[in-house]
């Protein structure tokens, strides 16, 4: 790569031209200055806050401490909360993987041309609408006496209430609805790259469809599955409005605990420490799977 191409001796032209590096810097400056101000500096500040004894208000002297990072040890209920978040994250990711992979497979193998394009847009469109509104819309369906109950009772008038709003499955349902399109898209891209000849060869050699599915399609689409899983798991463990709206009393997750520290308890240092613990988990997930991804890509 010709780094700093021609930085030293750009040929003199008749008109004045700024040196190339200056132009490059000028093009980059607005975006990266903005990102620094709005994302990088805030993250740095929050990291510093996580070592403070208490929220710095008024003239209180600043004291440094590590104790907020011991929160999981000092407040054992947080372990249960972390487990709730983790199990919600794993369930959501697993269901999205199965349903999303199957959707992508059906799309690739059973549709073509314009109708495939239209179906793909229809599948992805909800993702770019307001997540809050979509979560809210589920409360209309799964509340006691909601759409689900009405539909069930139109078939069997004495049906017991099927409403399961304010339970953990309700949270998972809302999250699956929110993040499924990610998995459809990443699996679709991965499956599209598989050569039909490979499948035809397997079939002509007598492979049945479970063999084709688990020995060819799933392994070859693994990068898509892993990418989708990361894109879903990471935001899901930080989710707080889905648990609040769909989980009610049972919807206590790491996301809602962190939110509480900033909006209710006003314990910013603890909230910062918990947020950075979560960030460490997120980075750990990225680091672990970037290796897996690279290996699958090479294999």
């Amino acid at each position, binding site marked *: 790569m010709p780094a700093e191409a021609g930085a030293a001796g750009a040929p003199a032209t008749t008109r004045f031209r700024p040196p190339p590096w200056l132009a490059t810097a000028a093009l980059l400056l607005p975006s990266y200055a903005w990102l620094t101000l709005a994302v990088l500096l805030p993250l740095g500040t929050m990291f510093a806050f996580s070592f403070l004894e208490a929220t710095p208000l008024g003239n209180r002297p600043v004291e440094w401490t590590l104790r907020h990072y011991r929160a999981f040890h000092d407040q054992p209920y947080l372990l249960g909360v972390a487990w709730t978040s983790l199990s919600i994250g794993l369930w959501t990711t697993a269901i999205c993987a199965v349903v999303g992979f199957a959707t992508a497979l059906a799309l690739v193998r059973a549709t073509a041309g314009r109708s495939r394009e239209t*179906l793909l847009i229809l599948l992805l469109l909800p993702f770019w609408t307001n997540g809050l509104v979509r979560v809210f819309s589920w409360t209309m369906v799964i509340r006691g006496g909601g759409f689900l109950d009405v539909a069930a009772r139109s078939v069997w008038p004495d049906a017991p209430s099927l409403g399961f709003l304010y339970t953990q499955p309700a949270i998972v349902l809302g999250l699956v609805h929110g993040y499924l399109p990610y998995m459809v898209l990443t699996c679709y891209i991965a499956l599209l790259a598989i050569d039909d000849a490979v499948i035809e060869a397997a079939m002509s050699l007598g492979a049945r469809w479970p063999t084709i599915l688990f020995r060819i399609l799933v392994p070859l689409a693994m990068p898509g599955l892993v990418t989708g899983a990361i894109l879903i798991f990471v935001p899901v463990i930080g989710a707080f409005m889905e648990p609040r709206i769909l989980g009610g009393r049972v919807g206590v997750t790491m996301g809602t605990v962190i939110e509480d520290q900033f909006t209710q308890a006003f314990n910013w240092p603890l909230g910062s420490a918990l947020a950075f613990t979560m960030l460490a988990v997120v980075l750990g997930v990225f680091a672990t799977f970037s290796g897996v991804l690279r290996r699958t890509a090479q294999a």
Partner: protein
Amino acid sequence: MLRIARLYIALVLVFLYLPIVVMAAMGFNASPLYALPFEFSTRWYQDLAGNDRLIEAGWNSIWLAVLTSVLATVFGTLAALALWRRSFRGRNLLRILLLPPIAIPWLITGTAMLVFFFWTGIGRGLHAMLIGHVALAIPYVVLVVGTGLQTMRADLEEAAMSLGSTPVHAFFRVTLPLLLPSIVGAALFAFAVSLDQFVISYFLSVPGMTTLPVEIYSAIRKGFTPEINAISTILLVASMIIILGFARFARPGGLGDSR
């Protein structure tokens, strides 16, 4: 097999759209308690017209999205030109730096902004939300415009310059017209990102300076009426139209035609 696969896709679409359709329908149901049977009424849309709080929040959302879209599109396009048309040391690092706003959970980014803006005295409110929304939208703009630049031939600009055009002149007469579909697509995308953003707005809002999603959230938490369905439906339809517009402009095929 083929029929089962198509039926399955249809079921997934029902799963994705059913709650949205139910929610929208309830906005046209007369009962304030969401009671059925369904009785058509535009009462909640009429109430909405008199709800100053929601209307003000709606205007805030729209202005915020317009400003975010303009700023992020201008800045992001400039950065994309540098990242895809010029070679310099540290280019890969700068591309990686675009990822944090996309990859870090918004809860963490949002609370970090709250802490930093409080500490520096920037404070909360619409100006703080604008700073946050633009930062979220810039990476998307850079990626969309960058993809457009990748599919566009660089030699056209070089040809223009070899024929005596200045870089600025070549940009405005050659690059910009060819890149316009990508830029319009990116602007629509940035608009949608801002319009639908809730988490960051939530942490940076103050009473009286909120956006529509924040107002909807507090209404849901306090106990809601079908008015919320009405405003939610409007918001949903608006963002769907914008994203369909984005898909129309930013598709690579459209770029090929304009060459």
